[in-house]
């Protein structure tokens, strides 16, 4: 690869995606289909000081391909990206987003706004999903430093970007997670309540959806839980997540596998 110099009229500007595409670093479109593992339930809940995200860790094909996939990653200090859909494309998507935000920052000596990041991802999703059967659907959550608030964006299959003010879910376990969230969400949730609700919704999805991995007490593998606040992206320690899921599990054991009348 030589020195990527452009003249003013065809310069790709600070967009890494545009540069990668014009220079052939990234495939603009790959046709055909391939069976590859799918990534499955991710939940994001907005609360009074940021956003909580919870994701299961199972990659499912015809069998369980992996039990410790990370479906949420920090895209930069204040932004998290979660993926569902084709694992291979999702991982590439996260890498592209991380690199793009950093690239923009270095090229222009300023950070993209959170809304700018959300919009930037739209055409990438659209290009991928309309040109291959290897669909990828992300969630973007972040702390917006210019408005001092946590914000959440979801996308449809054609790349449409929608801001959500309550919660969002992606993946095959969504219907079950969504039901729990609809019953438990309040607009004044604090961090502890948001974490608890997120964990409960993921437990529901893991309990009902065969392609979502719930807490794995045998291997000590638990869903990923992160918070995005003024302090940036923070991942909860596995022990803390484990304790949370263990107590949900204990309560369910007591009431015979159901919540037992209250959301718990």
């Amino acid at each position, binding site marked *: *690869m*030589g*020195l*990527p*110099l*452009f003249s003013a009229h065809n*310069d790709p500007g600070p967009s*890494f995606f545009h*540069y*990668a595409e014009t*220079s052939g*670093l*990234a495939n603009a479109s790959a046709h055909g289909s391939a069976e590859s593992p799918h990534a499955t339930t991710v939940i994001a809940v907005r609360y009074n000081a940021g956003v909580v995200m919870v994701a299961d860790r199972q990659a499912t094909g015809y069998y369980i391909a992996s039990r410790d996939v990370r479906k949420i990653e920090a895209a930069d200090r204040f932004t998290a990206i979660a993926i569902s859909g084709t694992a291979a494309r999702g991982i590439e998507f996260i*890498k592209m987003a991380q*690199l793009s935000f*950093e*690239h923009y920052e*270095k*090229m222009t*000596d300023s950070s993209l706004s959170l809304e700018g990041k959300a919009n930037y991802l739209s055409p990438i999703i659209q290009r991928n999903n309309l040109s291959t059967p290897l669909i990828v659907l992300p969630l973007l959550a972040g702390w917006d430093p210019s408005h001092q608030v946590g914000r959440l964006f979801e996308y449809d299959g054609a790349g449409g970007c929608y801001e959500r003010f309550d919660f969002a879910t992606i993946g095959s376990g969504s219907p079950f997670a969504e039901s729990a969230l609809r019953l438990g969400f309040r607009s004044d949730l604090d961090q502890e309540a948001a974490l608890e609700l997120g964990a409960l919704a993921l437990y529901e999805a893991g309990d009902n959806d065969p392609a979502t991995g719930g807490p794995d007490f045998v291997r000590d593998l638990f869903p990923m839980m992160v918070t995005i606040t003024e302090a940036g992206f923070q991942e909860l320690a596995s022990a803390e997540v484990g304790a949370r899921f263990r107590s949900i599990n204990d309560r369910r054991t007591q009431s015979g596998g159901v919540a037992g009348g209250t959301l718990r």
Partner: protein
Amino acid sequence: MTNYFYVSPEQLIKDRAEFAQKGIARGRSMVAAIYDVGVLLVAENPSASLNKISEVYDRIAFAGVGKYNEFDRLREAGIRWADGTGFTYSREDVDARALANYYAQHLGDMFTEGQKPLEVEILVAQLGSKFRPTKLYRVAYEGTILDEARFAVLGGDAETIRERFAATEEVIHPLKETLKNAVNALAGPERNIPTPDLEVGILEDRGNRRTFLRLDDAQVSELLS
């Protein structure tokens, strides 16, 4: 009918070199120096937004002197090259030496084949790691590449500044001393550069993947006090 006059290659090179040197001498100079735990880049730059110093990659920084539009295009190409290489291979495969060589080739080509030589001098700095040494590569307008041992001075007044700075840099100092010496060398005995006219960046390990940090006026004043 057009008449072509013969110009000897010696004369052509000399004219082009003079042209480039004049262009570079119009701008202010900059100093890059290795300090005990990092690399310091300091430039005299009255503009707070048209930068001479920039982050390129996790452990690589760029500095340019001369014509802003020319070195800024090279800076952008460097960032693209680094991000593209890291994307294709791995982050640890991005090496300052390869980038400095590309700059050298491009500047060399423009010097001999271009409409006019580029009126810039480039510095590529790399903070050492387990895999690579700390390096300062200086690339001149005609494509000469120099691997500077401890510090580099770029710009029109480079020789005088180099002498002044060399006198104070017999050993490697901490950041504070290195910055003071660099600013004194840039200013000379009769002048005092106000802090807002200084652009300062460092490469230093702070526990993050990205080691570049731009110091603001308050941080620079603090270090100079």
